[in-house]
């Protein structure tokens, strides 16, 4: 019987610098591995520690995943100073991921903040691969500064895909920045979506998720049509260790994607 705590080995094939605090790690798996977009994995720095991440790559690519990681804690800062070709441990995939079948035939609004675009990139790739299934894909992305924007080279290309509409903004611009300046909520108006047939998907820092959700409710989205990626302290990823509990749910096994309808009665969800 399999040991659920034992990670498989993944080799860091490449490391891509996205911003001064964010890198994307390209991992090659030794054993067959598949995930659904929005599911997460636990990455182990051998002998040191483990942390949860949602892959940012296309789930249609097998045996290779990309994980975009911000340098924020003990494990991530050590990962950021690690060289290529080291082995990491990988457990998962865990959680439910995005219910793509519920998105088909709809106007899809995707709202990202900062490194929160990482899981959303995986979602975007899945949608781009079958773009005919969706009415349109509208991306609204905000980062703190132009340097904090991730996937800088790719975003202009996404905007050129048919049915895809992209607007970005930064909280604080710099000399070279010619685009929008303001919080992501400032670009959540006059949204080109038909509310009767639309869903929205939000991922970013808790405070951004909170205000984006309020804005979307205001705009007219129904709570069951707002999908949120929740972040909580996680250890096991399997609904056993207790850490990620939010009300009656475990974020690891019942989420990490929830509709606002599921969460709206719970206390302190944005803390």
């Amino acid at each position, binding site marked *: *019987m*399999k*040991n*659920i*705590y*034992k*990670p498989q*080995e993944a080799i860091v094939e490449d490391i891509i610098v996205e911003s001064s605090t964010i890198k994307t790690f390209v991992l090659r798996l030794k054993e067959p591995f598949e995930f659904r977009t929005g599911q997460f994995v636990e990455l*182990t*720095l*051998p*002998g*040191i*520690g*483990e*942390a949860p991440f949602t892959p940012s790559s296309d789930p249609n690519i097998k045996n290779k995943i990309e994980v975009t990681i*911000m340098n*924020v*804690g*003990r*494990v*991530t800062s050590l990962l950021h100073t690690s060289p290529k070709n080291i*082995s990491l*441990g990988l457990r998962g995939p*865990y959680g439910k991921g995005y219910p793509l079948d519920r998105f088909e035939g709809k106007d899809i609004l995707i709202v990202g903040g900062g490194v929160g675009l990482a899981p959303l990139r995986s979602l975007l790739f899945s949608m781009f691969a079958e773009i005919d299934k969706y009415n349109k894909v509208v991306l609204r992305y905000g980062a703190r500064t132009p340097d904090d924007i991730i996937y800088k080279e790719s975003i202009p290309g996404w905007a050129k895909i048919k049915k895809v509409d992209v607007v970005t903004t930064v909280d604080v611009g710099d000399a070279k920045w010619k685009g929008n300046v303001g919080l992501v909520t400032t670009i959540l108006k006059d949204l080109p979506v038909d509310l009767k047939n639309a869903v929205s998907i939000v991922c970013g*820092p*808790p405070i951004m998720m909170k205000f984006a959700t309020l804005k979307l409710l205001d705009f007219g989205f129904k709570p069951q049509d707002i999908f949120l990626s929740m*972040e*909580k*302290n996680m*250890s*096991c990823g*399997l*609904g*056993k*260790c*207790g*850490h990620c*509990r939010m*009300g*009656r749910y475990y974020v690891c*096994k019942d989420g990490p994607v929830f509709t606002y309808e599921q969460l709206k009665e719970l*206390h*302190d969800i944005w*803390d």
Partner: protein
Amino acid sequence: MHQIYYIESNQLNILSRKLKKDYRVFFPVTEEKNATKKTDYSYRELTVNEPFVFNPYRTVEPLKTFFTPPLDKAAEYFNQEGSIEDFPKIIIFGVKSCDIVGHKVQDFVFLEGVEVDSLYRLRRENIIFISSDCTDFKEVCHCLAWEILPYPTEGFDLNLSPLNEGYLVETGSKKGEELIQQYKEFFVIAKDTQLTARKVKRENLIERLKKHLLPQHLVSKDIVQRLIKEGYNLDTWQQFMLTCVECGGCNFICDTCHCFLLMDKKEGNINKKLKAWDACLYTNYAKVAGGANPLKTRTRRLRFRFTKKFDFFVDNLGMPACCGCGRCIEVCPGKIDIREVLKDLAKKLSVKT
């Protein structure tokens, strides 16, 4: 379906030593020699010539220590881990009704859900519970308040009820029945008069326990979830938190608390994942790498422990995760009493208990 047998005390002494051949045998012992004094019992492994000790109520330590020790090896990785080590067969005597009910929570967490914890399952399969009726109780005992009787009715392999110079032995599982068959020369079928005597003894203890509990006006099973939900924003949490020193004792000693943290360690060339008990009363329990901490105050952490027990588990398992063993009350250096916390909610919400 449950068969009931009788065994004499001196025969049980001999049997428990025989069992040592095939099992590691644990049973509760006390340092206190005076049998009339209330004292604490702890599990110890049976050595060769000890007489069998009957514990009138539960042990100090929770049953979960046999299944998830405080620091456990969860996995080795990047090497060919030998198939999971052979786990010795264990018999535990003296398990009480509250322990068995509390243990349902551990079983639910580790045996059900998205995946099974294979090490837990291995241990579960290799451990035999020989439970026993309570013949006395501690001040903190409040099983009855949760509608749990002070004698086991299910979930045991064998159950002992002391009677005169021996014990009635009830089978509760196939494992238990097989054990009896293996040593059938030690047992006789119980007589009806003995069964009646057991019933009387059990009823007497329930009466005594009721006398102890009724004046306390404890919160009952059917209103507890409502109290927790409606009392979320009361100042109860703030008040009771004041004496909490965040030792985690209430979590560690509780038979239903199951939280753990996976940790990584290198020993020589071997990478290991360890599973260490964790406590939701600890400051960093819910802190995320970025620094946010939804449980940043003691008030929130104390409340979290209660919402887990009386809201989360009622929703997810259909029962509150408290069996009334009172261990957390005894252990708390801050004198925080779970009975009083719940009663305070009821009082402030004007709900009759």
